[in-house]
């Protein structure tokens, strides 16, 4: 199962037959493994990792540090789940350290992201403070380098 997950994390576009060839399994076996992962809820989804600069996209992304007041029953969970449900929020993590939630917010421009923070996020009951950091440039995301220039420079035949 670990071998299949490792493969999916790198490239989820392979057919089950192709995955089988790499894992020494039949396509049917791979399908069964995928079905099991699905039933377990282990696969949240699949997505492309896009270098936004290359496609001329002007999407704005920000990391918001959020401080919360924990609740008597459930701590941060209720509020964190509520924040995570907003479409603008692409990721949301509970953190150790100086703040509680790291919230990644995406929007078409600066104004919309700022508006989301000031109108939706910071006005929620239980949100003590927010600090917004806009992303300036991507060097690596989801394990992929933005400019990976490693060329195969090996001699064509070596002992």
């Amino acid at each position: 199962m670990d071998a299949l997950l490792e493969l999916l994390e790198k490239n989820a576009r392979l057919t089950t037959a192709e995955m089988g060839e790499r894992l020494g399994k039949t396509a049917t076996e791979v399908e069964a493994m995928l079905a099991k992962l699905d039933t377990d809820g282990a696969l949240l989804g699949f997505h492309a990792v896009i270098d936004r600069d290359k496609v001329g996209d002007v999407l704005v992304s920000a990391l918001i540090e959020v401080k919360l007041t924990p609740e008597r029953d459930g701590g941060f969970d209720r509020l964190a789940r509520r924040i995570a449900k907003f479409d603008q929020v692409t990721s949301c993590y509970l953190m150790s350290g100086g703040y509680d939630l790291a919230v990644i917010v995406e929007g078409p421009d600066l104004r919309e992201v700022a508006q989301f923070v000031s109108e939706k996020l910071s006005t929620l009951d239980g949100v003590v403070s927010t600090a917004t950091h806009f992303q300036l440039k991507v060097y690596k995301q989801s394990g992929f380098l933005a400019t990976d220039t490693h060329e195969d420079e090996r001699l064509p035949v070596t002992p």
Partner: protein
Amino acid sequence: MKPLEDRIADHVKQIPRSGIRDFFELVQGRDDVISLGVGEPDFAAPWHIREAAIFSLEKGQTSYTSNLGLLSLRECISDYVEGQFGVCYDAKSEVLVTVGVSEALDLVCRALLNPGDEVIYHEPCYVSYNPSIALAYAVAVGVQTKVEDEFVLKAEDVAAKITDKTRMILLNFPTNPTGAVEPVEELEKIAQLAIDHDLLVVTDEIYSELLYGGDSGMDRGEHISIASLPGMKQRTILLHGFSKAFAMTGFRLGYSCAPNELTEAMMKIHQYSMLCAPIMSQNAAVEALKNGAGEVEKMRRAYARRRNLLLSRFEHMGVPCFSPGGAFYAFPDIRKFGLTSKEFALRLLEEENVAVVPGDAFGSAGEGCVRACYATAYDKLEIALDRIANFVKRL
């Protein structure tokens, strides 16, 4: 003036040109070749290792080191070898850092063989074994291993070659070019032969991390080095390096672990011919041994997936290929197509632009097979396999 050809030493003249070299020149002249003919990883050395080399240069560490190599590196090697092979070597007196395993093997031959001494080695094998022995004025005695035996070296075949001039047995498992691994029962018998006939054993362990065991090769199998068998440490020279498992071929760094008397003898030559291995490579190697295990395992798993892909495709196209237990080579048997290894490789190159190495480049025992290296990016590997399938369909 004498013709320049006559100035070349007799024993050098007698060494034939490498078959690999001939093939390399053919491949180099062509465009758009997908090469499965490479004998090194396609990964760059892991970044943390490269970064350590850069850092050492920034700090101005550009001097000679001790002839034996940096003590800090030898200590790391000693720990690593104990963990990997279960054999203890003293970092101060039994470890010698060399410029690749190639230099270490050359040192072994020159330091420990007298003219006319015989060395038993197994074919097909890495191309430098025979010449390294010959350049030390010793006699290379090849034992042929067979595709039918999955290129396992039979102790009885070794025994048949032992004479009163035999001094040494040279082993390499997992093997380049076949990917073969040696069952421990045979290894034990070979160890007994070495003890009975008072022979030294040289074991080239360069591929020992790259093993494919358990479920579809995804598990790291267990590797047993002959050095770890009872009574063998005192008669074994263990050679290893960073090129394959750590993807550090260009760093040119290897080492030998051997009893102090043998290490001293090898060091004598090393100090005059090489002085020491490059310090930036040695610094990088310290980082590799301290923090590289995770990356090595990641690369091993990537090779395992490609190996599965290659074996599954060969099976589909009806090319017999035994399941290699290690390294990153497959050695398919192409005899059923009625071509020699060379003809097969040449026509595959000319007709489909895919390079594999003819098996006979690794000794006559490799005839009838070709070496396909799967240390190649997936997309290229898949195209190469499609092309090979097209090719064999026409044969």
